[in-house]
C-alpha cells in the first residue's frame, strides 16, 4: 500500500458515498438528525481535495493526515470516530517497513479499537461498530488463513452487509438514536450504512484489479 493507492481508494469511496446519498441521508433522518450524509460528503471532498499533499507522504503518514483532516472537517459524532480510526491506522503502520495485507489488517483492527475507545461503545449498540467489528475480526482471520486479497475482499463485503443488517433490530444505546428507545428498532444505523458502503467500494477496487 502507498499513498497513490490511498488516493485511488479515497476517490472510489467518495463516489460510492455520493451514489448512496438517498440511503444514508434517509437513515439519519429516520432515527438521527439528518446530517450524516452531508457530513460524510464533506469529509470525502476534503480528502479528495488534499490528494496532491497526500501523494508526497508515506502510507502511514497519509492515513494520519487523513485522520487529522477528517477531524477538522466532519464534526458530529462520526468526525472524531473516523478521525480516530485513520490516525490510529497510520500510527500502527508507521511501525512497519513493509506493508502487506497482514499489516493492513492489523492497522484496521487498531483503527476499530480506537473508535471503540473514543465512542465508549461495543458491538450491538446500533452503530458503525456493528459493521466494523465483524469486518475486522474476519479480516484478521482470513489473513491468518493466508487467503488471497480477492478472497478476503469478497468475504468482507458479505460480512459488512450482514453487520449492517444486524443493526436493524437493535435498540440504540449509543449516539443520537439512543434517545428513541424502542422506536429505533426496525431502522438501520446510518453510520453502519456508510461503513458498509465504504468497505464495499474498497473491496470492489481490490476485486477489479
Amino acid at each position, binding site marked *: 500500500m502507498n499513498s497513490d493507492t490511498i488516493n485511488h481508494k479515497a476517490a472510489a469511496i467518495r463516489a460510492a458515498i455520493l451514489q448512496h446519498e438517498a440511503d444514508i441521508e434517509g437513515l439519519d433522518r429516520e432515527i*438521527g438528525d439528518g446530517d450524516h450524509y452531508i457530513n460524510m460528503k464533506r469529509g470525502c471532498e476534503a480528502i479528495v481535495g488534499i490528494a496532491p499533499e497526500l501523494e508526497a507522504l508515506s502510507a502511514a503518514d497519509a492515513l494520519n493526515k487523513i485522520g487529522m483532516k477528517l477531524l477538522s472537517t466532519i464534526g458530529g*459524532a462520526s468526525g*472524531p470516530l473516523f478521525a480516530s480510526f485513520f490516525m490510529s491506522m497510520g500510527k500502527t503502520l508507521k511501525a512497519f517497513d513493509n506493508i502487506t495485507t497482514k499489516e493492513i489488517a492489523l492497522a484496521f483492527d487498531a483503527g476499530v479499537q480506537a473508535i471503540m475507545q473514543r465512542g465508549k461503545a461495543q458491538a450491538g449498540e446500533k452503530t458503525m461498530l456493528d459493521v466494523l467489528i465483524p469486518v475486522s475480526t474476519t479480516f484478521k482471520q482470513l489473513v491468518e488463513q493466508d487467503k488471497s486479497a480477492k478472497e478476503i475482499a469478497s468475504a468482507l463485503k458479505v460480512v459488512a452487509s450482514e453487520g449492517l443488517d444486524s443493526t436493524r433490530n437493535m435498540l440504540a444505546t*449509543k449516539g*443520537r438514536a439512543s*434517545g428513541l428507545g424502542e422506536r429505533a428498532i426496525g431502522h438501520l444505523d446510518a453510520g453502519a450504512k456508510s461503513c458498509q458502503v465504504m468497505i464495499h467500494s474498497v473491496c470492489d477496487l481490490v476485486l477489479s484489479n
Partner: protein
Amino acid sequence: MKKFLNNVDHMLVESLSGFATAHADLIEVQFEPTFVIRKQKAKNKVAIISGGGSGHEPLHAGYVGKGMLDAACPGQVFTSPTPDQMLAAAEAVHADKGVLFIVKNYAGDVMNFEMAAEMLSFEHATVYTSDDCAVVNSTYTTGRRGVAGTVIVEKCVGSLAETGADLEACKTLGEKINLRTSSIGAALTSCTVPAAGRPTFDISESEIEMGVGIHGEPGRRREKMREADAIVSDMVAAILHDIEAKQLPLNGEVLLLVNGLGATPLMELYLIYNTAAKLLKEKGFTLARSLVGNYITAIDMAGASMTVCLLDEEIKQHWDSPVHTAGLRWGV
C-alpha cells in the same frame, strides 16, 4: 424547502457574517476555523467557551458577551464543531485562569470537545448539560441530552466567571445548575435541515412528537394532538417526575423558561407559560424568574420546550447579574 438562502454550503458563513456586522460593537467572528469571541477580550477570568451544531440560534454565538460566554464555536447545521475550532477559540480568549467548556451532552459534541480538551495546553474543565428529561438516563444510553437548560448554565456560569472565580468553582456551579434543571420539548412539526432540503420527519395534522430534542430527532413518543392544556400538563408532569427522581424538593423558587423551537408564535408560548405557571404554583412552587421566547431553537420547527430550574440564592444572583449579548441583555 423554502428558505432565505443562496447556497447551502455558504449559508453558515453568510449568516455569521451578518451576525458579525449587526453586533460589531459586541463580538467578532473568525473563520477557518470558525469561532465567535467578545470584542473586548476579558482579563483575569476563567474563559467560558461553548459551541455545538448551528441551527439553534441565538445559542451559542448569541450568548457571547459580557456576563456570559467568552467564545462560541458554531458547527455546521446540527453537527458539532470540530476540535480545531475549540482550540483556536481557547487560544484567543484564555486569560490565565483556565478554560471551561460548556458542552451539551450529545455523542458528537462530547467527543469533539473531548479531543480538543486532550490537545489543549491550558488548564481546563468541562461541564456537560443534560437537562432533557425525555431521555431516561441509564447506563445503557449515552444519557440525557442537553437542551434549553444550557442557556441557564451559560448565563450563570458566565456571571460567576466574571467575578474572578476559579475554574473549579465555575465547573461546580455549572454542574449544580444542570442537576437542578429539567426540560422537555414537544414538536408540532419537523424542522428542515437546509442541506437535506426536506423535513426530517413526517407528522400529520393530528399528531405531536412528545419529548423531542433540538435536532429534529424523533421524540420519545408520537402522540395524538390535544388541546394545549393537556400537552402542557403532560410536560409539567414529566418535569415534576424528574425533580422527584433526582430527590430534589418539589417546592421553592423556580425559573420557568418556555422556549420556542423556531416557528412558534410568542402568543402560543405565553399561553403555554400561563398554564405551566398555574400548575407549578398549585404544586407549591414560586415563579421567581421567567423567560419566554426563542432562546434555543431547532431551525424552523413549530414546537416548544419547557424548562424548570430550581433556584437558590446563588443561582438567582447569577441569573440577575448584568449580561450584554446579542441574545440576552439586561442590567447594561
